[in-house]
């Protein structure tokens, strides 16, 4: 594929600037045809017509006639054609990924807006921990974004569960793409007790439901990029492939002496915590909403993110994104680096043979940008598995330990402890993740070695190192899937 041009043949049919309202009767099978009939009688011609919100001078025209490459509103960028000053709204803009994406898209020329209700800051405070990379207050973040990068971000403090306020904000801003990060991202947090499970599930599930209703009402032609997780699939012991959401066309179900096509059916989900279950419920809500209301969405089954770097967040200390290392909110590679720095042996749960998919922060930003650039078609619910590779956790620990030793002179050990989770510790893993590279032109730019070195360099700064030290007692897990609360015991220590 020619670099960056994955979306050159898309037409106005999938452009969020199109206005199809009342002009297309979707669901040809079984829906009323009166409106379209009337329209066709008035205007003549059998094929559909639309208007462009950005170029009203075109009048009514055939939306299949103009490609992104031909349209002056879609401009050449490193990540494909992107709408000029594209309006992108980020739900959960104060988070690890949300803030990073805001600066990234702002730098690309998008008009970024966003909402957050700071619940992540509150959950972290409630657990008695903190982000070890200090982050500024939102007002200061916005100010620094303007001062350092020249980016204007339009922020509103808002809870996504407040459907009325969200709808109003959407109507005001009219985003052409919406990236929905605003959920509680933690499996262990959801396993603490009933209150936490309930809060995670209601925040995530009802938040997404609210978002869907608000989009339907305010901006139905906009793209919804919804964040799911690879953990929705689980790790089936048969080793069957983890397809991207759906079975491929030639998959068949064989039973007794009969065969049925499975093509296009949702694949089985096997979530591994109450948090992951909320994501599976989201999947069904988004899938159905696309069907009922012809919304357009990509559901991103995201691998575990690691890293601290994009050029934008590194441009000024006030622009840094959060970085958590505690048992609830730290992700595994990030935690390994922090453990190495304060001399805690890198902790593997159980056998340590679990395999997971991973992607660096910067690569994740690239993926989301490429998805925004190639919007789904009306009614399309697409799924991508977003990861750049998969690894055994033990191998990752060894990689981090080796980098810590070789490049930073640290004495790093690795330990196995009791596994507080209920999960397979040895399992096959066969994820399919070819859509982003094949259809969206994603090219991996960062890798574990480079990003782990960057993390070491940042986290070894004395003020950050001391913030890790302060919370070192919150690194080893005490939250058991069984409901127990106790320290895990060491099974084995390796040098």
């Amino acid at each position, binding site marked *: 594929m020619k670099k960056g041009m994955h979306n050159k*043949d898309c037409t106005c*049919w*999938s452009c969020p600037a199109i206005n199809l309202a009342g002009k*297309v*009767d*979707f*669901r*040809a*099978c079984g829906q009323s*045809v009166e409106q*379209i009939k009337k329209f*066709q009688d008035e205007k003549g011609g*059998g*094929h*559909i017509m639309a208007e462009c919100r950005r170029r009203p001078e075109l009048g009514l025209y055939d939306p*299949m006639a103009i490609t992104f490459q031909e349209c002056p509103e879609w401009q050449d960028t490193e990540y494909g054609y992107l709408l000029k000053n594209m309006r992108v709204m980020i739900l959960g803009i104060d988070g690890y990924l949300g803030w990073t994406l805001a600066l990234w898209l702002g730098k690309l020329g998008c008009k970024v807006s966003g909402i957050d209700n700071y619940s992540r800051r509150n959950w972290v405070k409630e657990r008695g921990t903190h982000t070890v990379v200090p982050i500024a207050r939102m007002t200061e973040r916005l100010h620094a974004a303007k001062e350092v990068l020249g980016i204007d971000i339009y922020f509103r403090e808002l809870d996504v569960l407040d459907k009325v306020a969200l709808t109003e904000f959407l109507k005001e801003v009219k985003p052409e793409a919406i990236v929905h990060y605003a959920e509680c991202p933690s499996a262990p947090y959801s396993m603490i007790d009933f209150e936490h499970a309930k809060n995670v599930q209601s925040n995530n599930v009802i938040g997404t439901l609210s978002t869907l209703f608000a989009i339907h009402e305010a901006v139905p032609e906009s793209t919804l990029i919804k964040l799911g997780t690879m953990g929705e699939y689980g790790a089936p012991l048969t080793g069957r492939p983890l397809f991207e959401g*759906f*079975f*491929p*066309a*030639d*998959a*068949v179900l064989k039973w007794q002496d009969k065969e049925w*096509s*499975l*093509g*296009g*059916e*949702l694949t089985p989900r096997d979530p591994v915590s109450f948090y992951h279950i909320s994501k599976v419920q989201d999947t069904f809500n988004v899938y159905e909403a*696309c*069907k009922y209301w*012809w919304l357009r969405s990509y559901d991103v089954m995201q691998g575990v993110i690691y890293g601290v770097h994009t050029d934008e967040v590194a441009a000024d200390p006030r622009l840094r994104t959060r970085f958590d290392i505690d048992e609830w909110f730290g992700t595994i590679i990030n935690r390994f680096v922090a453990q190495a720095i304060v001399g805690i042996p890198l902790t593997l749960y159980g056998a340590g043979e679990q395999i997971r998919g991973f992607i660096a922060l910067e690569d994740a930003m690239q993926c989301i940008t490429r998805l925004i650039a190639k919007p*789904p*078609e*009306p*009614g*399309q*619910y*697409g799924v991508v598995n977003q990861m750049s590779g998969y690894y055994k956790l033990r191998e990752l620990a060894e990689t981090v330990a080796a980098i810590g030793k070789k490049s930073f002179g640290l004495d790093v050990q690795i330990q196995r402890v009791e596994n507080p989770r209920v999960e397979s510790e040895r399992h096959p893993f066969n994820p399919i993740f070819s859509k982003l590279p094949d259809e969206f032109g994603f090219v991996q730019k960062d890798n574990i070695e480079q990003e782990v070195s960057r993390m070491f360099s940042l986290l070894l700064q004395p003020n950050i190192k001391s913030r890790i030290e302060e919370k070192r007692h919150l690194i080893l897990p005490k939250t058991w899937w069984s409901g127990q609360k106790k320290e895990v015991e060491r099974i084995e220590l390796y040098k």
Partner: protein
Amino acid sequence: MNIKILNDYNFEKEVLQPKTPVLVEFWASWCPPCKMMEPLLDELAKEFAGRVLVAKLNVDQYRDLAAAYPVMGVPSFFIFKLGKIVSGPHIGAQSKTRLQKIIEEQMDRVG
């Protein structure tokens, strides 16, 4: 992309006039099984290039055309020859071997 995209201007010429068989998928963008069929149809189009045209029609965009054929759900597959349906509707996602078989049956009868 080797699949012929149909519309109300080219349907007559591409589907109804040729003497060779034409495989037509009636599809919609909100239909996951249809989306899944895309790469597979593309492969078939390549395999049968010059012998059988593989084409698709979006039923939302050209509903009048779709209404003229017994499209009860999407995706629906038909084989047209000399303006007539000679096979189908085959409803729902189909495996590649199944579609190959359906096409080859009609090719045997050419002549």
